[in-house]
């Protein structure tokens, strides 16, 4: 796996903050994007995607829009939708730029009308191989983000950051969840970099599902961590725990960033990511 994020002068990648028409971006997601940019001395591209499907909807003869309060509805025209999205995009981008300036992070904005996956793939491909996509809207049940599709279609990315609706902090311990020995060092380095920006300590959580294999792999990891005395290793026995249990443990630990592999035991697929993200109070950095 690769957790590299391109530095600003590399011109080979950046943090792509995916913003859309579906309501306000989540603060923690924006904060997570800024932290990553600070940690890796990268840039942010604030990409507002006007989902083309919304305009397809608006073209339908019976298209209506129900207000968020559920108390009003109106006929939805393409023009109305375009106007609403435009003003929403302007406001959101302005706020993101203000926060980037305050965080001393280089940022640029772009608005595109396309299918989100296509737009992200294109944006990442333009920038280089080492991009991280941060999903601006909170990830939640019933609203598919299409993570698997993203991982599949957006090749020029090392990972995707998501945040659940309860996410409220980026500070706190940075926990890298590992299951395989070969991922320990790169994930640990990524965690350390992030911890420099968030001010938390770095922890490695080793998920073991095979008791016979546990001692060996733990020993190997401790050997690998020899030079990093400050990093705490926690071994989590997954034979008696679910991913949700682990998520609650992380929550009790006050975890900030959590780094895990998409497709691993903690987040095998998008349906597993949603409850995990909903439990955590910090962002979840899913890597390949």
């Amino acid at each position, binding site marked *: 796996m690769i957790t590299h994020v391109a530095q600003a002068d590399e011109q080979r990648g950046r943090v792509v903050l995916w913003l859309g028409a579906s309501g306000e971006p989540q603060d923690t997601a924006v904060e997570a994007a800024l932290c990553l940019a600070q940690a890796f001395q990268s840039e942010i591209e604030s990409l507002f995607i006007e989902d083309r499907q919304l305009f397809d909807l608006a073209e*339908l003869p019976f298209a209506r829009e129900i207000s968020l309060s*559920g108390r009003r509805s109106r006929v939805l025209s393409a023009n109305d939708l375009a106007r609403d999205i435009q003003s929403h995009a302007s406001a959101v981008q302005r706020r993101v730029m203000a926060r980037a300036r305050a965080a001393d992070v280089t940022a640029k904005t772009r608005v595109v009308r396309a299918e989100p996956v296509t737009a992200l793939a294109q944006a990442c491909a333009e920038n280089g191989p080492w991009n991280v996509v941060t999903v601006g809207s909170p990830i939640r049940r019933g609203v598919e983000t299409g993570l698997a599709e993203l991982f599949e279609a957006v090749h020029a990315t090392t990972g995707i950051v998501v945040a659940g609706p309860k996410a409220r902090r980026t500070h706190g311990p940075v926990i890298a969840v590992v299951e395989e020995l070969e991922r320990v060092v790169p994930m640990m380095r990524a965690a350390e970099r992030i911890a420099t920006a968030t001010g938390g300590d770095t922890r490695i959580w080793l998920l073991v599902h095979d008791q016979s294999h546990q001692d060996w792999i733990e020993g190997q990891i401790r050997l690998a961590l020899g030079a990093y005395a400050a990093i705490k290793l926690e071994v989590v026995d997954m034979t008696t725990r679910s991913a949700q249990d682990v998520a609650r443990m992380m929550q009790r630990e006050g975890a900030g960033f959590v780094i895990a592999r998409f497709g691993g035991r903690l987040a095998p697929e998008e349906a597993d990511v949603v409850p995990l993200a909903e439990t955590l109070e910090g962002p979840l950095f899913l890597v390949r």
Partner: protein
Amino acid sequence: MFFKRLTKTKSAPAPLQPAEDTARPDDAIPVPALQANSGPQPLGASDLRRTVDSKSLGFKTTADLEPAEGLIGQDRALKALDFGLRIRARDFNIFVLGPPASGKSTAVRAHLAKVAAASATPSDWIYVNNFDDPRRPRAIELPAGRAKALSKGMLAALHELAATLPAAFDAEDYRARRRAIDEEFRGSHEDALDAVYAKAAQQNIAVLRTPLGFGMAPMHEGKVVKSEVFNQLPESMRRDVETRITSLQAELERILSSAPKADKRRREQLAELNEEVARHAIEDALDELSASFSDVAEVAKFLADAEDDMIANAARFATPATEAERTPAALAEDPRFRRYMINVMVSHESDTGAPVREEMSPTTGSLSGYVEPAPQSAAQRADFLAIRPGALHGANGGALILDARRITSSTAVWEALKRALKSGEIRIDAASGVPGAAASLDPDPIPLAIKVVLLGDADLFYRLRQDDPDFAGLFKVQADFDETIDRNKDNDAAYARLVASIVKRHELKPVDAAGVARLIEEAARIAEDSEKLSIEVGLIADIVREADYWSDSADHKVTKAEDVARAIEERTRRADRARDDVQESVERGIMLVDTKGSKVGQINGLSLVQKGGFSFGRPARITARVHLGQGRVTDIEREVQLGGPLHSKGVMILWGYLAGRYAQDVPLALAATLVFEQSYGTVEGDSASSAELFALLSALSDAPVRQDLAVTGSVNQWGEVQAVGGVNEKIEGFFDVCSARGITGTQGVIIPHANRQHLMLREDVVKAVKDGRFSIYAIKTADEGLALLTGLEAGQKGADGRFGAETVNGRIEARLRTFAERARSFSIEGSKPAS
């Protein structure tokens, strides 16, 4: 001596002069050889100054004496003060009258302190927040000494809560329960949404988020069906899709619109959780304080209210406070905690008696308290903690001493005081006193039980009684401090103790008995009465302190009589430049005053000059001229508006005397002019009326008046000579002029007999009298004075109702008859028809 040259031998009357020119002031006439009668005898030296025998005082120095506490000889005033302080009625406030520097302030303070120390200690008062209406802070009364304990206890509780409440809200237990509530809400709401999403998905309907809401569209292979594709679908299918979407939209609307209610339930549950968590911590922090003050119902209620308020606002305490943010000052700045703090308005140590306060420069704010305005930059408004106490708060339950003149000089302050006394409460006018004060704050009034003691003088007292309708009703007790006390053995002894107290207070050297005796004599002189002693303590204290200085200069171990005399002399010397100027102008002949010989229609009057706090006497030449007229005495001072009303009255009385004495059966066909020669200022008072009468009678009788005598005294219509003020200074003024020109041995002063008791003359004057070089005569009637001044018999009316022709009065009578006859003949000639 002069009186020895008087004989009972009657002399022939001096020849009458023509009526048109009866007085000849320019021609000196020798003292008449003929003497009138025995008349009044000159006073003996012992009558002129009542001395104190230092041996009779019974001590060597003031170090042997117990210093006097408070005032001496002011029993009446002190009893009034005592009465005013003890009577339990709010309108029996006290006005202390007395001259400045009389020591009344010191005495009042000492007396109040004594009474206050034996009185009950009044309650403490605090202001606290009114949780129902912060604009109206609550005033609470506590037993003496407990307000500070409450304030301290509350601060400690808040300090604790600033730490324990955030900890309680940060505990895993709280967070878990909160999450559970959130989850329950979110779960039920989102489950419902999920169900709609799932139902929509099953029907191939996409639910999409727009910036302002949700939209639904048919879906094919995960994508929204485009309109051109949709439009090609059979109509029945299109209708079916629309129907399903409409149904789903209705369901979504229902779920979304129910969210506020669900959220309300969530908030209610969270509030209950917060209350439960907070209650435990808050009760822990406040329990001890509540128990300590359970006996004070109002405080107990406040603490209960505070507890309820804290619980209701518990979420505000969730943010942890650092140690620096938990100091009393920081808590007072933190709006979360400020509202629970205690503003101690007044606090007393228990069993310390009633308070006595002074406010010598009162403003409405310093008197009744004020509300300190919030800083311009501060977002918060002035609140109950910004209330500051005034003098009335500090003195409540005791006494407040105020300077009457200062407080009445400001209408606003005076009205504020009267308002408080009338209403019996201290009501803080938030808008007064301080610019920018929070006018919207309306604190509870605090009941007022106080004795206000105004220090003033008699003039102000009577003016207030006359002009201010509220004054008499509010200041019912008048403590009138005498300016003098009787002079007797007991009071001499008391005076010595007063001197001892001055010595002690100013840490001076002791004064020996002779020095004290000299001070007592000076006190009598200040009182202008040999039978009284001035109790202008301030003035006496100044003399004692200056005497101490001169004693030091002379290397005396104690202050002696000579030091006291030096002090008095130096004080006089420093102030008497004006007297020296007058003296010099007399000596150089600029101011015309004769001190020997006799003259018709001219006499030496004596006037009193006051310059600042110093007064001195000086002779003044008074002249009179008479002629035929229509019965009018012209007072030239009055004509040119230099004569005051009292002076004019004195002159008019002369006319009554003349008419009654000499013109019972003939018209008073006289015109006369009277003038104070070389007087360019206002003449006021009637003390020269006897001198004016004598000048007038001299002019009428053509009898020369002795110029070696000066006269003071007023006279009534019956010819009785009445007492006047400043007699000592007047005698000394003439004595000084005579001394400067050379004492002849015949010189002296005629004073009213009633002024004998006021004589406390300078020692040099007394010595001159003792040596027979100067004389003081005390007369009761004008006739006595007339005889002394002319050397002639004044004369009494005989059986025929006429004065003897050879007497002065006989001459006057004859002269007036002549005027009357001439006037009649003029009248007859004038009434004859022209031929």
